[in-house]
């Protein structure tokens, strides 16, 4: 078969294809040679641009693909796993939950407000593209050291941007995470997750079918913004990255709200054959993926694409990352219905092409063909790299002798709850509308957010988790722990964990150490997902989070979703009454390695993270969920960062907003010869543990059930009083802890930016 004739040169003069031009598109010599071989000729400028974005790390997953394939993606309740705009699970009664997480790290560093805002806009589109109404947003944030000059500016902008977009569109932002570490200086992370609900029988996919059917563009006009956003997300920052600034996009949440309502209304009419949002790499990626999935071709008339700037070239139109745009294939004869609905919502739309059977992407402008590429190679022949990787050398366990003397526990506790990582993030979530849609039944501040599935008595629990200090110490364990912690947080509110999405944030995959972290984390995640029946149904990889050779901590953020159905009972972490028994579920050996206490109080990041026993994890979590379902516990909280004492403090602190705080008194274990030091019992981060409170009368039932389930459980104290008291070791007032806990972030942000 001979290659088709090369397309005509477009009206405007275009740069000649030179080695420099190829390199500036982020393509290696081998990659370019491969393109020429595939085409049987040299690409023109537009075609080169298209290859460069399709083959970028961001779109092609060329460094991560072979490893992502190892993750488990199936379960009986999974309707759609990775590969579509978002993953889908069955939540019963003919309903489905649709969710995904995305990173917008690089744009958020360059322009925090707009970068974060457009990140939210993008993930929302991924959800409603599938026919789901978005019902909750989450955001997982990591910033550099609070002492770094730029950190405050980044926090202010990112938080305002996430709120600015989500609040305007009217989807509640119900939770997230926000932590700090100097490794994120210059590379903050903004991971945004959206959960939507759809009719399981009315889900929309992206495979373009139906030769001759109209390809319709809807939404904002195309401008020159964001050109090469995808390649920017595929290159590490050099100190001159400020020069890349013009690629920033501005979000328009008002338009997105109209596009959202128009799309959902159109979807209800059965006019849509296939639909896809225009995200990274814009019109290129959306049209190529639609045609590839459908095994068809697409012909686009670029003169008909709505543009908002004059003299846009085919290259610019194809590569623009302007926001709030959708691409769809209509069923025959439905063009008018679509037009009417888009007009009602004041959304611009245009028929810009048609589906063909050629297997090619054909671009026309000014009556000439300006690009003509085979679809399959753009996707399937994208390079796949088996990057060399180095497993990190195992760390030495912490020897007790290495530890400096412990400060008094109450003093350490006050410092911990008022530290950047553990302090209340109220300053953030009060800037997010977390109540709109009036289904938020657990607001931010708990282990997982809980939202009702509108009009039913089912609820979805949602959490995001990751402990990067474990991931850097032991990637495999860290990856597994992130999954286990998400599972645990869902169990702690009484939800049955169903599936996860992820956002894998790492440095440059071209560095074997970083690649080793990536491989370890993914393998660990897979292991935990299998052990916990908690498959991965969507996700995203963000590499090149490093500046001048300093990578971020490996940060595989996990977004977990669970379901509360049946009994409908859920738990919250606030103590409910005085004189209840406080129980610790799970085994405690006292692991301080890589703990927050060690880092923030003793000043060391050494040691190995606590071991993870996935069978115990499952046993303990199932047990706790059972207690909640039976209505046996009045409060429940998992034990995580900061260990037992911090968990107890958080349960007492959560009582403050309601009025008089409820304190707690516990008895530390009697010192035995071989027992861990007290600090290890109080602050160690042993996994698979929960604290619950229950009326004394129910304790025998709980203990018996624990014995039957082979789950360690011990009564450690009682609720009551206005302090956290450690028998024989002092007490601290809850009001004082509250001040420390609530104070840090607002005080920090009050300083000039």
């Amino acid at each position, binding site marked *: 078969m001979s290659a088709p004739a090369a397309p005509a040169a477009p009206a405007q003069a275009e740069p000649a294809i030179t080695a420099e031009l190829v390199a500036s598109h982020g393509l290696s010599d081998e990659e370019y040679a491969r393109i020429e071989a595939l085409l049987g000729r040299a690409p023109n400028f537009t075609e080169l641009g298209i290859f460069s974005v399709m083959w970028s790390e961001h779109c092609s997953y060329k460094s991560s693909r072979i490893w992502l394939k190892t993750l488990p993606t199936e379960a009986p309740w999974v309707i759609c796993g990775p590969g579509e705009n978002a993953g889908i699970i069955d939540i019963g009664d003919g309903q489905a939950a649709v969710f995904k997480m995305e990173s917008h790290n690089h744009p958020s560093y360059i322009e925090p407000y707009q970068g974060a805002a457009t990140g939210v806009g993008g993930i929302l589109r991924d959800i409603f593209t599938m026919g789901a109404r978005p019902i909750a947003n989450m955001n997982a944030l990591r910033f550099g050291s609070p002492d770094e000059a730029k950190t405050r500016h980044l926090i202010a902008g990112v938080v305002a941007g996430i709120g600015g977009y989500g*609040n*305007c*569109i009217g989807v509640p932002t119900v939770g997230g995470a926000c932590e700090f570490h100097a490794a994120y200086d210059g590379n903050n992370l903004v991971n945004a997750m959206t959960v939507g609900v759809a009719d399981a029988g009315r889900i929309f996919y992206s495979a373009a079918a139906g030769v001759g059917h109209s390809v319709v563009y809807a939404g904002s006009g195309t401008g020159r913004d964001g050109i090469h956003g995808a390649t920017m997300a595929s290159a590490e920052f050099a100190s001159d990255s400020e020069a890349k600034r013009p690629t920033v996009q501005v979000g328009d949440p008002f338009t997105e709200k109209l596009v959202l309502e128009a799309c959902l209304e159109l979807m209800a009419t059965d006019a849509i054959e296939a639909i896809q949002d225009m995200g990274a790499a814009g019109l290129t990626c959306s049209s190529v993926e639609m045609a590839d999935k459908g095994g068809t071709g697409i012909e686009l008339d670029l003169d008909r694409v709505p543009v908002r700037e004059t003299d846009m070239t085919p290259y610019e139109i194809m590569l623009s990352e302007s926001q709030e745009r959708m691409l769809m294939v209509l069923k025959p004869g439905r063009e008018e219905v679509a037009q009417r609905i888009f007009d009602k919502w004041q959304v611009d739309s245009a028929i810009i092409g048609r589906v063909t059977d050629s297997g090619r992407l054909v671009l026309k402008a000014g009556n000439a063909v300006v690009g003509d590429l085979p679809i399959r190679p753009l996707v399937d022949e994208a390079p796949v790299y088996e990057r060399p990787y180095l497993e990190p050398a195992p760390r030495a366990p912490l020897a007790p002798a290495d530890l400096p003397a412990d400060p008094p526990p109450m003093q350490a506790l006050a410092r911990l709850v008022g530290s950047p990582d553990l302090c209340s993030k109220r300053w953030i979530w009060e800037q997010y509308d977390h109540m709109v849609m009036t289904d938020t039944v657990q607001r931010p501040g708990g282990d997982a957010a809980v939202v009702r599935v509108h009009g039913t008595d089912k609820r979805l629990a949602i959490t995001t988790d990751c402990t990067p200090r474990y991931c850097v110490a032991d990637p495999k364990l860290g990856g597994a722990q992130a999954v286990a912690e998400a599972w645990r947080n869902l169990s702690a509110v009484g939800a049955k964990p169903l599936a996860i999405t992820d956002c894998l944030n790492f440095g440059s995959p071209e560095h074997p150490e970083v690649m080793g972290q990536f491989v370890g984390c993914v393998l660990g995640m897979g292991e935990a997902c299998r052990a916990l029946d908690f498959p991965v149904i969507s996700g995203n990889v963000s590499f090149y989070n490093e500046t001048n050779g300093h990578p971020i901590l490996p940060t595989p953020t996990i977004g977990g979703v669970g379901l509360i159905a049946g009994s409908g009972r859920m738990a919250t972490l606030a103590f409910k009454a005085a004189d209840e028994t406080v129980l610790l579920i799970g085994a405690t050996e006292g692991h301080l390695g890589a703990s927050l206490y060690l880092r923030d109080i003793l000043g060391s990041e050494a040691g190995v993270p606590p071991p993870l026993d996935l069978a115990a994890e499952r046993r303990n979590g199932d047990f706790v969920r059972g207690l909640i379902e039976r209505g046996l516990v009045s409060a429940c909280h998992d034990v995580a960062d900061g260990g037992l004492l911090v968990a107890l403090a958080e349960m007492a602190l959560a009582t403050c907003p309601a009025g008089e705080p409820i304190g707690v008194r516990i008895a530390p274990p009697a010192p035995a010869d071989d027992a861990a030091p007290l600090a290890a019992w109080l602050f160690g981060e042993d996994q698979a543990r929960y604290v619950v409170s229950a009326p004394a009368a129910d304790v025998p039932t709980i203990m018996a059930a624990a014995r039957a389930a082979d789950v360690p459980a011990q009564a450690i104290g009682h609720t009551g009083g206005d302090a956290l008291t450690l028998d024989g070791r002092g007490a601290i007032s809850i009001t004082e802890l509250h001040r420390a806990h609530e104070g840090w972030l607002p005080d920090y942000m009050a300083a000039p930016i």
Partner: protein
Amino acid sequence: MKAAVVVFPGSNCDRDVRVALEASMGRPPAMVWHAESTLPESDLIVLPGGFSYGDYLRSGAMAAHAPAMREVVARAKAGVPVLAICNGFQIATEAGLLPGLLMSNASLRFVCKDVHLRVEHSQSLFTDCFRAGQVVRMPVAHRDGNYFAEAEVLDALEDEDRIAFRYCTPAGELADGANPNGSIRSIAGIFNETRTVLGMMPHPERLADAELGGEDGKTMLDRIVAALG
């Protein structure tokens, strides 16, 4: 009793208020698209919260010119009760139904949280479920909720008992720390001259369901519905 909720491009609490009203009324209110130039027969008109036109230019400014608003203003003049919540309040001031306007929060940040409100005047369709001086709890969620009017206007509002709610501490005291947005004289809601139009920044529909953490909003909506038959 019949109610109508006007929906503008960018409204996003229209469904919330519909759900809460339906719970009180036993049947759904009519949802009226902003482009309609006639309103159905209604005993109550609600302007819901959200971000009409993205809050671009000035919040409420563009929605105030919607065809449906001409009709709302005419009905309000004729005595039909209008409940304007959050963005609805902003629209009502821009449309001249209520005096003053809502500026950026003093913090310049969006704020979403439960606040305490002191009921300033209970002799109205909207507030007679409460006692004057009673403290109730409702959420706010806005970036432009900082009420402003000139001194003469404020004095007149006070003299005529047209201040419906003020932000306060749980104990009912006025304090800077209890004012979430810097509103002048801690104003959270005001009436028109006949107390048939109420504009308020807090969202009664968000605490109209025990599972959401409170029912002060339900008390209010139930009473309005009962009074209107």
